[in-house]
């Protein structure tokens, strides 16, 4: 029996095992425990690994973002710090600059002379003159013995400061002194050339009063200054000549455009000159019959009237006529004087000549009524004289030295032969100027 039972068990086992070994994986429903355990172990392992990976991945994801943000933030902070530092520096520099500007403004303001403006201008000269003969006071040719008139040479110097005081846009004070060394006097001569206040009334009229240059004498008013006059000496008749250089009085002057031309005028009333009726030196009565324009006290109570009108028919051409009328004789006499002047100015820049041509001319007439002089009796007291001058400066050439050279030629006339002077004068002056700058010149003549 037991053997049978064993055989049936073995057969059952085979039957049971047989299907296990011989089972084709045709179905997933059954795995062996070993496999199951293996699979479970693998699964667990995988799960574990996955968890680790997950954790690592999460770690990795967190780490770079944090690092980039920190760097940017750090860089931003550094930049912000730099910008802040630079801004602070700029602010400091601007503040310093503002302080300096304020200081400079204050300095300028402190130095500015208020609403009025004072200016010192003027001119000066240093001269050397040499004459071979005929130097000395004028004398009648018939006088004997003739006073020797030897040649002479000397240096001289002058200084003319001009004060210009602009009190407002319409009000101007002009003052000029003349400081000169006298050839026969060790002292320095000081003269008040001009002291005039002018007020611009409107576009066409200016009024003035004081001591002013004689407007009827074109050379005196516009040309006599050392840096304007083109020769070292001055024309015979028009300066220290037949017309007073300056007047004490009042004037009205201005300029009016008339179509394409311009009309300038100046009219005055002033202390009159006085007639010299006696000679300073009776041996040489050459000054008898001349006019003394430096009688500032107007001792004879005469008034002079006169003026000048000028026309500019072309921009480069001016024609002028000046006159002065005055009683000049001593009390009780009716001696009058009529002084007249005609002037011409032509200045033109020429491309053809590569320079500027400058022409000035003026003629003066002096008529003094008949008067019986104590020592000389009556005489024809008419005098006249003038000058014509031409200068040329090649200021358009390339050469810097040549364009500063200016030759000049002047012809002077002074006729007074019928007066106690007794002779006429003629003079040619040939000069050569070199302009150091527009208002500084070396003249030789």
């Amino acid at each position: 029996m037991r053997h049978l039972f064993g055989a049936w068990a073995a057969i059952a086992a085979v039957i049971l095992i047989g299907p296990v070994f011989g089972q084709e994986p045709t179905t997933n429903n059954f795995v062996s425990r070993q496999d199951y355990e293996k699979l479970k172990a693998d699964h667990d392992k995988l799960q574990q690994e996955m968890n680790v990976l997950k954790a690592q991945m999460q770690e990795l994801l967190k780490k770079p973002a944090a690092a980039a943000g920190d760097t940017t933030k750090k860089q931003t902070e550094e930049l912000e710090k730099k910008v802040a530092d630079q801004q602070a520096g700029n602010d400091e520099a601007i503040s310093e600059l503002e302080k300096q500007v304020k200081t400079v403004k204050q300095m300028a303001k402190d130095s500015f002379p208020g609403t009025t403006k004072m200016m010192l201008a003027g001119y000066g000269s240093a001269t050397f003159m040499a004459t071979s003969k005929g130097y000395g006071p004028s004398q009648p040719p018939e006088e004997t013995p003739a006073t020797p008139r030897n040649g002479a040479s000397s240096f001289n110097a002058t200084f003319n400061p001009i004060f210009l005081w602009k009190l407002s846009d319409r009000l101007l004070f002009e003052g000029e002194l003349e400081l000169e060394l006298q050839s026969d006097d060790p002292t320095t001569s000081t003269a008040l050339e001009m002291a005039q206040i002018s007020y611009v009334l409107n576009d066409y009229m200016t009024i003035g009063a004081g001591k002013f240059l004689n407007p009827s004498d074109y050379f005196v008013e516009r040309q006599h200054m050392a840096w304007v006059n083109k020769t070292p000496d001055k024309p015979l008749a028009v300066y220290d000549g037949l017309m007073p250089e300056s007047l004490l009085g009042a004037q009205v002057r201005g300029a009016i455009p008339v179509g394409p031309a311009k009309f300038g005028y100046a009219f005055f009333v002033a202390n009159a000159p006085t007639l010299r009726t006696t000679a300073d030196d009776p041996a040489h009565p050459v000054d008898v019959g001349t006019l003394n324009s430096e009688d500032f006290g107007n001792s004879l109570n005469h008034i002079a009237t006169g003026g000048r009108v000028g026309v500019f028919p072309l921009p480069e051409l001016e024609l002028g006529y000046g006159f002065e009328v005055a009683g000049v004789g001593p009390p009780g006499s009716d001696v009058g004087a009529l002084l007249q002047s005609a002037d011409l100015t032509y200045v033109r820049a020429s491309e053809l000549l590569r320079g500027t041509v400058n022409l000035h001319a003026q003629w003066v007439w002096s008529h003094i009524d008949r008067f019986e002089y104590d020592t000389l009796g009556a005489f024809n007291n008419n005098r006249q004289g003038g000058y014509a001058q031409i200068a040329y400066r090649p200021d358009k050439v390339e050469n810097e030295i040549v364009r500063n050279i200016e030759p000049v030629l002047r012809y002077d006339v002074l006729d007074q032969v019928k007066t106690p002077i007794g002779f006429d004068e003629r003079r040619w002056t040939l000069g050569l100027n070199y302009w150091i700058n527009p208002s500084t010149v070396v003249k030789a003549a």
Partner: protein
Amino acid sequence: MKRSFNSFLLSIAAFSLLACGCASTKQTSGTPAQAQAPTGKEQTGAQLWAQTCMHCHNVRSPSAYSDAQWDTVMLHMRVRATLTAQEHKAILAFLKSAH
């Protein structure tokens, strides 16, 4: 005296002819200041400066003086040289702007 005045007039005429002949050019080839008629309306400050100043003396550069000094100098010139109001204003404006 009449003869000397006549000879003087002749010398002026001679000088004038010489000056005009030498300076006779086409208007367009002269300086800008002299290329136009002398009316303030037509000429600029620069033209008036060159033309008006050279009538008596050499032309000074605008940089010779400050603006404040030019104010004073030009008022002095307006009185002395009988400039018109327009000439005064135009030249002064040019001098102040040119330096």
